[in-house]
């Protein structure tokens, strides 16, 4: 298939449509406006539904409702908007409603800035709502990856009957790149997805068959429901995705995800020419986290980890620390407040570490 030149947000929306998403509700917030705008144009072409909700809160609850019918459904927002959605996300997780959402993250805390940032790592990976539920969280570092992750996210959501998060920084969301789009699911396939969910979907079963009872709270068996969910989370080790770049002989290992990892990778190519043995571990799934990539490092060779992220204070570092387990020092190279990670900053940080 020919490559097309697309903006990250629009590419995510098109990937969702191609995966069979037929319901989207969203609310304006920069820098993700191109996602609802794209769906508004595109959904009528494929017989799907687009609703501009009156708020982020309403939008996620519309998705909770649409997802409850077994329809592939999605919402998106950015940072503080995701916070507003968090109650609904928790309801979807508790009621085991498959749905996909994207956070095209911006600065924070609070309203932050509209510029790209990675300030939502802990929220995304540890607690996107109350109650201790978990989700698969994918962090793209290219527009192509954002497409592929969104496309596959609907399969994961369906498999687990659980929300899936695309944690995408504002850089990937707003930049344009040449990409290959995945195959469009046929109308028959899309209808089959919904039909396959009919048994549990809240669409009207009537008194003579087992009713659908969507339970966001489990009054008579909350512990059982939590045990069942926890057992499902335990199966996710197989879903861990990580990129390890030039790690085999590395003395300095950069830990970074999303756009920061991409910037770091370009710095590594320059540093390698200088003779500095530096590599990269890039979590592609930030939850579950690829701890093993850090655990298996030969710490007689690795003298330092450099945590590179667009967040102050650092957040990814908590997971890195768990993997490294005090076996070498962890330094940081951080930007925040809408400042994009620069290659020069990474170059300087690695050179300084190398001199130590």
């Amino acid at each position, binding site marked *: 298939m020919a490559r097309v030149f697309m903006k990250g947000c629009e590419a995510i929306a098109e990937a969702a449509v191609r995966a069979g998403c037929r319901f989207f509700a969203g609310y304006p917030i920069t820098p993700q406006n191109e996602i609802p705008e794209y769906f508004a144009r595109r959904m009528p072409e494929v017989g799907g539904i687009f609703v501009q909700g009156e708020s982020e809160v309403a939008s996620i*609850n519309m998705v909770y409702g649409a997802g409850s019918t077994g329809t592939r459904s999605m919402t998106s927002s950015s940072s503080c908007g995701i916070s507003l959605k968090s109650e609904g996300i928790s309801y979807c997780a508790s009621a085991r409603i498959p749905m996909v959402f994207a956070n095209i993250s911006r600065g924070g805390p609070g309203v932050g800035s509209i510029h790209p940032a990675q300030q939502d790592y802990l929220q995304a990976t540890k607690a996107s709502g109350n109650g201790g539920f978990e989700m698969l969280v994918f962090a793209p570092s290219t527009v192509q990856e954002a497409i592929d992750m969104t496309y596959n996210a609907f399969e994961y959501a369906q498999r687990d009957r659980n929300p899936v998060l695309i944690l995408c920084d504002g850089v990937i969301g707003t930049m344009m790149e040449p990409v290959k789009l995945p195959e469009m699911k046929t109308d028959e396939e899309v209808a089959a997805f919904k039909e396959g969910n009919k048994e549990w979907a809240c669409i009207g*079963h009537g008194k003579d068959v087992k009713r659908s*009872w969507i339970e966001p709270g489990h009054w008579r068996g909350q512990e059982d429901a939590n045990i069942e969910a926890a057992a499902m989370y335990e199966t996710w080790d197989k879903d861990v995705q990580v990129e390890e770049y030039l790690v085999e002989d590395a003395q300095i290992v950069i830990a970074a995800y999303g756009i920061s990892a991409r910037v770091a990778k370009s710095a590594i190519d320059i540093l390698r020419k200088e003779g500095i043995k530096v590599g990269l571990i890039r979590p592609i799934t930030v939850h579950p986290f690829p701890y093993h990539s850090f655990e298996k490092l030969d710490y007689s060779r690795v003298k330092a980890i450099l945590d590179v992220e667009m967040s102050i204070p650092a957040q990814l570092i908590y997971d890195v620390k768990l993997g490294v387990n005090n076996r070498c020092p962890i330094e940081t190279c951080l930007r925040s407040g809408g400042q994009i990670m620069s290659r020069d900053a990474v170059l300087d940080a690695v050179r300084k570490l190398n001199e130590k």
Partner: protein
Amino acid sequence: MEKVYSRTTGIREDMVNGFCPGCMHSTIIKLIGEVLDEMDIMDKAVGVLGIGCCGLHMEYMTYDNTTAPHGRACAVATGIKRANPDSLVYTYQGDGDFASIGLGESVSAANRGENITVIFVNNGIYGMTGGQMAPTTLFGMKASTAPKGRIAEEHGYPMHMCEILNQLTAPAYLERTSCNTPANVMKTKKAIRKAFENQLNGKGFSMVEIISNCPTNWGVEPLDSLTFIEEKMLPEYPLGVIRDK
């Protein structure tokens, strides 16, 4: 012998309802079930229950239902109805849910003319949480968070949701009923039926506001709660069809 009355199939036979003695939720839920039976649409019905006492009957229902986050029932119903237009989708919400925390979702769904039905149970108080003040609490009516009674200067005025929604162009049908007398129970049933028929006919947003009671948190005997509705609630919330287009 001719059978003139039977229990609705919308409520499980093996369950005893857990509402407080005298609470009108039991009556209203029964009426919804009867209407679904009589219209033969139980196999299309999806109930979206609000948080609070409204959600208490989820276990008694025999047909599809879900529970919305507090106040969000109209948004959840929007998602269900749009994604599956063949369903008969109604919300079942109290005054705290519909008129306070969910005001944005309620007004917006009405303004979009969403083709859903709202059963809005207004008893002027928060029931499940223990009698706190609602937007519909009457002047002078005591609540656990308004121990001296509601006063305008501090708490504002009782909200009239039918009249508020009547300012919008889109809603198809707005009626206020009660269940305080047998005659009013029958009128409520008729109104629920009309609201459901509107949805099946694609007419858009319909709401039945039902003036209800809360003997427990009003601190009165069930029979006295009927008198309270007649003497206090209905002068503030007059019954009747507010919109029918």
